[in-house]
């Protein structure tokens, strides 16, 4: 598996091939344009891998990729988006062992790691099933008092900037899945102490028929990446998963430039953060009037 410690592996008689952890942008796995890196650490502080320390430019590139993918993704049928989310669940299930190892390397017990991976798979399945149902539950035909056919539907907000939760796998899945289920594309900033599951989740997405650019995952430091993402005029909404009110407040102020919609998720435990309102919070309501007549 990928995260064996070099010394231990060498003692077993074979030098392992170590993995370079890169980011996921536009369906590709580039390094940060900045060439900088940070270290992912084990709970005891031992470095276990180098990760990309992304820059403002990386954020802008990711937004460009997300924008380019958005109309096409929203234009997919709800059925197709559901199948693709289901495919992500299938691929994650198949790589459970790898993710359990990553979570265990981050300090989880093997039971906790297994439970988190299973919950993440089930969460993807849950939202896969919502793609062709939330519109039915939350749209309306409005009985206006004039001779018009009037209806309100939900439309994807567009490009969502996600400050990913610290919860390394379940939190990331729980924040991204409802966003993309509704036709949005995302730029997720992974800034917690355990970036490796998120980076590896990009590989799952890339092998699940998710079009490039629908989910973009950047690693690095929040204080370098969040402000440029929150201020970016081609980002339509922010999903701020942080229990720190100062983080939300500073991002909200940056978001005023183009009146981004902002949803704040202060949860630290993501076990129960699952509902269709996670989808509708990232949707616009569009009302259309058509005359009824000859």
């Amino acid at each position, binding site marked *: 598996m990928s995260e064996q410690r070099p010394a231990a592996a060498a003692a077993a008689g074979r030098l392992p091939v170590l993995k370079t952890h890169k980011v996921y942008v536009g369906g590709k796995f580039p390094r940060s344009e900045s060439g900088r890196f940070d270290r992912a650490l084990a709970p005891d502080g031992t470095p276990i891998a180098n990760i990309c320390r992304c820059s403002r430019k990386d954020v802008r590139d990711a937004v460009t990729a997300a924008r380019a993918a958005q109309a096409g993704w929203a234009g997919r049928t709800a059925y197709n988006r559901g199948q693709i989310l289901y495919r992500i669940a299938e691929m994650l299930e198949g790589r459970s062992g790898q993710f359990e190892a990553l979570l265990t390397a981050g300090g989880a017990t093997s039971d906790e790691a297994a439970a988190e991976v299973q919950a993440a798979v089930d969460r993807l399945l849950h939202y896969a099933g919502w793609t062709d149902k939330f519109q039915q539950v939350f749209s309306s035909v409005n009985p206006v008092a004039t001779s018009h056919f009037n209806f309100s539907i939900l439309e994807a907000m567009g490009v969502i900037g996600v400050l990913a939760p610290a919860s390394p796998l379940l939190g990331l899945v729980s924040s991204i899945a409802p966003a993309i289920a509704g036709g949005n594309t995302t730029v997720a900033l992974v800034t917690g102490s355990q970036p490796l599951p998120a980076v590896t989740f990009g590989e799952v997405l890339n092998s699940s028929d998710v079009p490039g650019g629908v989910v973009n995952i950047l690693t690095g430091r929040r204080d370098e990446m969040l402000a440029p993402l929150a201020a970016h005029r081609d980002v339509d909404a922010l999903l701020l998963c942080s229990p720190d009110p100062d983080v939300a407040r*500073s991002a*909200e*102020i940056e978001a005023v430039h*183009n*009146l981004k919609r902002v949803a*704040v998720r202060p949860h630290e435990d993501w076990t129960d953060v699952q509902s269709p309102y996670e989808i509708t919070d990232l949707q616009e309501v569009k*009302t259309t009037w*058509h*005359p009824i007549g000859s």
Partner: protein
Amino acid sequence: MTDSTESTGHTAPKLRLGNDDGWAYAPAPESTDHVELRERYGLFIDGEFTDAADGRTFETANPATEEKIAEVALASDADVDRAVAAARRAYDEVWSQLAPRERGKYVYRIARVLQERSRELAITESLDGGKPIRESRDVDIPLAAAHFFYYAGWADKLDYAFPGRGARPLGVAGQVIPWNFPLLMAAWKIAPAIAAGNTVVLKPAETTPLTALKLAEIIRDAGLPPGVVNIVTGAGETGASVVQHQDVDKVAFTGSTEVGKLIRRALAGSGKHYTLELGGKAANLVFEDAAVDQAVEGIVNGIFFNQGHVCCAGSRLLVQESVADEVISKLKDRMETLIVGDPLDKNTDIGAINSRAQLDRIEEYLEIGEAEGAEPFQTSCPVPDRGYWCRPTLFLQASQSHRVVQEEIFGPVLAVQTFRTVDEGIAMANNTPYGLSGGVWSDKGAKAFRVTSRIRAGVLWANTYNKFDPTAPFGGYKESGIGREGGLAGLHAYLQPEQAA
């Protein structure tokens, strides 16, 4: 006018109706004799009318005559404090304790009295704000009553608002409304708020406080518990005091994008709920397969309704090149028949500009448009000597970069551009930071559906324009605002779902 030298290619002589050809209408003013207006109005706080704590007042005037109508109390921070405290007390002790059905009955009462006093309210609206009596009588007042009636019925049905979840009110709502639809905006704000179980402090616009104060009388006479609805009059400072008040749980603002951003910034990190209904620069797209005469009526209604003082006005006309000459020629002819003048005259199409300040702003844009190279067209109708007036105006040959295309003018001024393909028309429509509304004119249903689904805006009108209904959610994408008013979505703006068990 009888001259038909426009380059339309029409050869048959045309009959045109205008203002200078002997077809002038005799005046038909609405009588005002049964409208009771007081010389002084106080603040409505905790069920009573009171003076401002510091005794200050301001004048509200008739924009059609520039004459003062009444003096109105100017609320300071101390008065807003008092109003918010009354709203909090009413929320805690009375309104949140009341059976939902009974709460609904109070709201129904308001709807009924609005209908009973509709004529008086319509005249007051036109006197204070300058809008044509036909519009205040047929649109503003009936819709205001309809909003109260619609939301009254929600009061005991909130368990159905969020599938799978319960619902509870937010608390005290601070609400600030504009001068373009004074009573209707008060209804949009107050009706869903109190039906959902909140209490409110509402600040009407400085230039149009009177119908809100008449609504206060109605609310008092309907027997609502004191403090459920409080109305504080004043200008921008009073509004700022309302939206920034610490003890307000929800802010609802309708007004400019500029002020909306200031409010949004002030609310950052507060965790408070908010809805913002802001500016717009809507495109009205006319395709070559449109019914041209209907489209021309829709263009006129889109931009000249309420003097163009409409956030969702169709202020950009995008017309497909192949029909542009015909559409523009017919539009000019139709515009020449529009009557600008006395808002109380039932023949009037375009009333008074709401204030001197707004007229100055519009006239500044008329100069900007001409300086930037757009080709102005203004009708020749007479306008009264006193009061604030603006003839219906076009800017032809406008470019995407022109300020009259990019910025909200909030007056009877229409920027006209042409496009060739459907995709180009959609791209031009979306090329704006705003996203409140849009119009599509085409007799091809499939095309109308496709275009409405691709315009990034909250309200789309296909082969119609400027229609409103309490059941139909209204609100903007992008910099036109956040949140919806009207319908179930508008109810959500005053509720929060209970957390899942």
